[in-house]
């Protein structure tokens, strides 16, 4: 916010006048701040305090004293490290598959006339209107040993033994990509729609082939949308619970599943809190790193670079 200096500069500035203006300005700021207070209180009460509480709990041991036992456990037992590796691996793979599938889809949609594209968008958004649990169990019905895909595949002679499509990492990835694809397509589609077509025409008038025009003009302009979508997908992946629990067959242990296990096994919340804290810290570190690597790219921005 800039000070309204214009009037003060033109008028022969009396001291009291300037002070009155400053006071007015302070009041205005206070009033504006007052408008933001309900939202701030909400964020502090529902986000900041519980997160701080979580941090504190992670430093409380089984006997209620302050200790590092919850963090020590994570270092001593190799299963924790593997859980974190598996979590980031699943998140990375899901994001990569979403990009590979979602980019062509969003590009295709952005080239369609707006009315047709809107209809197609409904198809993309349709999964949002069904419960996550229902969709996940639907995949179980489709993919399992006696499920539709294996039954048809064997009947059609495509393969003879049932394929292991679910109760493993494959099943988890299929389920997660399905759930998260719209989160990539939506911002990407928005970014692509916002790209000025005249720029592509200008490129071809300057002698670029269609693929050159795409690679040198369209792709760079769509990167902010892609980055935003990819980030959303990646971060949502890190906290996924239901899909790996149902489709992973107990073989895919992500951090959230581990948190649930720890609450059952240990007497205090610290063991579970510590996992949450480490996940939060590692995620922030990764985002910061990604931000540094992609300097100049606005991670959370819209389509106009």
């Amino acid at each position, binding site marked *: 916010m800039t000070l309204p200096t214009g009037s003060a500069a033109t008028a022969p500035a009396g001291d009291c006048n300037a002070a009155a203006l400053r006071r007015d300005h302070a009041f205005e700021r206070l009033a504006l701040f007052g408008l933001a207070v309900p939202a701030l209180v909400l964020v502090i009460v529902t986000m900041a305090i519980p997160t701080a509480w979580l941090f504190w709990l992670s430093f409380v041991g089984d006997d209620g004293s302050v200790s590092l036992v919850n963090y020590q456990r994570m270092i001593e*037992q190799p299963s924790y490290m593997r859980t974190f590796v598996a979590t980031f691996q699943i998140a990375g793979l899901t994001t990569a598959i979403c990009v590979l599938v979602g980019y062509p889809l969003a590009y295709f949609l952005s080239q369609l006339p707006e009315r047709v594209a809107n209809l197609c968008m409904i198809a993309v958004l349709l999964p949002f209107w069904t419960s996550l649990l229902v969709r996940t169990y639907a995949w179980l019905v489709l993919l399992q040993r006696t499920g539709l895909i294996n039954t048809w595949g064997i009947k059609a002679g495509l393969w003879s033994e049932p394929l292991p499509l679910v109760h493993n990492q494959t099943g988890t990835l299929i389920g997660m990509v399905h759930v998260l694809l719209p989160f990539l397509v939506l911002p990407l589609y928005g970014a692509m729609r916002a790209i000025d077509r005249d720029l592509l025409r200008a490129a071809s008038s300057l002698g670029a082939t269609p693929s050159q025009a795409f690679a040198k003009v369209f792709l760079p302009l769509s990167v902010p949308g892609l980055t935003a979508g990819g980030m959303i997908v990646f971060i949502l992946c890190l906290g996924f619970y239901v899909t790996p629990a149902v489709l992973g067959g107990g073989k895919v242990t992500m951090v959230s599943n581990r948190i649930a296990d720890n609450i059952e096994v240990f007497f205090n919340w610290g063991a579970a809190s510590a996992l949450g804290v480490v996940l939060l810290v590692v995620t922030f570190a990764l985002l910061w790193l990604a931000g540094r690597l992609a300097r100049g790219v606005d991670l959370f921005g819209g389509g106009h670079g």
Partner: protein
Amino acid sequence: MQSLKAGILAALAAVLGATTAMAQELTVVSFGGSYQEAQSKALFQPAAKALGIRLKEETYTGIADLRLKVKAGAVAWDVVASGSGSAARAGAEGILEKLDYKVIDVSNFLPGTAQDYCVGGDVFSTVLAWNTKTYGDAGPQSWADFWDVKKFPGKRAYRKGVAGALEPALMADGVPPEKVYEVLSAPGGIDRAIKKIRELKPHIAVWWSSGAQHAQLMKDGEVDMVTGWNGRFDVVAKDGAKVAYTFNQALLDYDCYAIAKGAPNKDLAMKFLAEISKPQYQAEFTKYITYGPTDKRAYEIGAIEAGYAKRLPSHPDNAKKQLTIDLAWYIKNEAAAAAAYQNLLTE
């Protein structure tokens, strides 16, 4: 007008008086679903009627919920239904009230089914079940068979949690049932069991985490062999699933009733537990689900039909084939065993 007002006031006073003079209220919490339905019909409602009290039923997901309530000092539950292991740990942790066995009669209970903080309500088994479409009725009969992938080729499902997972492995490794906890308590015992499970790991298609899940796996024919809770298999078999199970080498365990620490109506809760622990209530309960009574007299009073009684886990013929879960071992070792088991699962 004046008389109308007085009339209303009198009526109000009468209502208020009635509520204060009315029966005491007790809150009971259990796991919901068909299990709580059976409890409600066979135990909770009839017992409340017999004691002349009002009863409120709630559902919860596990002892972690109770822990939160006790630690926050906001206990609204009196009686808590629980698994035996969770109750033993919760008791040791100090979030349950000690039970008064001068009030609750457990003189004819199966040994070990009445612990300091939780009185047994029903007995269930972790059994070996198989797909009758794959193996017919002559399915695997022992844990050695479960591990024998040459004699019984096929996909297995095993429990994702450590409770009841190590004992079968040791029996498959040749440890006689009565020596299982001795071996597990000795140094290297847990590792021996883990090593045996690692051997079978490539053949375990699913690590199940709930009773509903292992029942569904058998119903869908997703695996050929599974460990799980006997009552669930009876329910899906009735529903047409191709599943059979054996009590041979099964793990005998029980569900129990406890009183939450700081329960608002502790004394009444104790009387309530005494009531539902009577053999006639326990016999009635078996009619709704194939979980057996903890009081041996329930078999003797003629309330359970003889043929049906033979299908219950705690029937003497079945009980003698099984290994009873050792809660003391779990209180002492569960956290360490769970860590080793998690390690195996993520390998």
